């Protein structure tokens, strides 16, 4: 019983300790003029879907969940957002060349088709971010159109 107590105390100290390690937060009040929604004529339903399902990790502004400041959760969020933005940042869409846009749109289509995005770890908590078959089709049709018009 004593050993259990010691382990619990160690865990508690470690848990409290890591709370003091700072993380970068992905938040911004402004939407730059290069934003995907601003430069493309995106139907409202698709705008909403992109916002809910993609923008948390693929833009400069994350709607953080309540537990976002608790470590080690904050680290994982930070990591995912960094990766997501490196791959695709919707806020900076129009700074890409046509070639790059075509590549990105292609990847979006493939990832939605294959159910690779949004990540399962994301939809686990944000169930509203999942794509129904109809929603996926709607988005893929729109993105395909956009790609063909480049």
């Amino acid at each position, binding site marked *: 019983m004593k050993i259990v*107590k010691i*382990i*619990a*105390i160690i*865990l*508690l100290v470690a*848990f409290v300790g890591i709370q003091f390690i700072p993380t970068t937060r992905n938040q911004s009040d402004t939407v730059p003029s290069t934003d995907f929604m601003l430069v493309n004529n995106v139907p409202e339903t698709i705008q909403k879907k992109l916002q809910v399902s993609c923008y948390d990790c693929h833009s400069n502004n994350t709607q953080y969940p309540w537990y976002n400041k*608790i470590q*080690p*959760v904050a*680290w*994982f969020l930070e*990591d*995912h957002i*960094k*990766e*997501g933005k*490196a*791959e695709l940042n919707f806020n900076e869409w129009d700074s890409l*060349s046509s*070639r*790059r846009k*075509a*590549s990105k749109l*292609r990847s979006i289509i*493939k990832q939605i088709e294959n159910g*690779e995005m949004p*990540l*399962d*770890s994301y939809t*686990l908590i944000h169930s509203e971010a999942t794509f129904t078959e109809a929603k996926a089709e709607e988005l893929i049709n729109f993105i395909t159109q956009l790609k063909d018009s480049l």
Partner: protein
Amino acid sequence: MSKLKSTLGIVAIAFITLTVMSCKDNSKEQNSTDGDHSQMNHDNSDGHHDGEKKEMAMSGDSNAQAVLNDYFNLKNALVGDDNGKAKELGATLATSLGNFDASQYTDTQQSELKDIVEDAVEHAEHISESDIAHQREHFKVLSKDVIDMVAITGAEMKLYEQFCPMYDGGTAWLSTKEEVRNPYYGSQMLKCGKVQREIN
């Protein structure tokens, strides 16, 4: 005393829950290590600056030739259905693309080449970390990039632009040999396709 125990118990449970949650995130991360990869590439390109200088000293567009050689090696790995080798060669190609030096070209050509290279690097990086179906998807766009690059840089040897009408609505690639060996299907449909253009 028992109060302390139950408090500790609650804290321990909270900690375990958080750890489990983060583990889930962690395992997903392995499916999409894209971010890691761009970092890896930075390291690579740094390490290869010496090689770049040597190549440049030798001849004008040996840069483009290095990219082409790595592209053909990658293509052959895909023809051979070799996922592991294609991963390695994707990373090699990302490096030689990173070393590409366009300074001898005009400003317009330079910006076009920069754009091509940037796009191609991303696809090569993805190839270095994907299963074979994904590798082939990325190879399609990569091939377009390389074809566009050759249109500017030219090539030292004779090239054949080949075309498979079946893969993803019709897809092209480059080869040094006239006979068709399909990188998009490999052994499944090795000879599907035709030569649609000869370069040089």
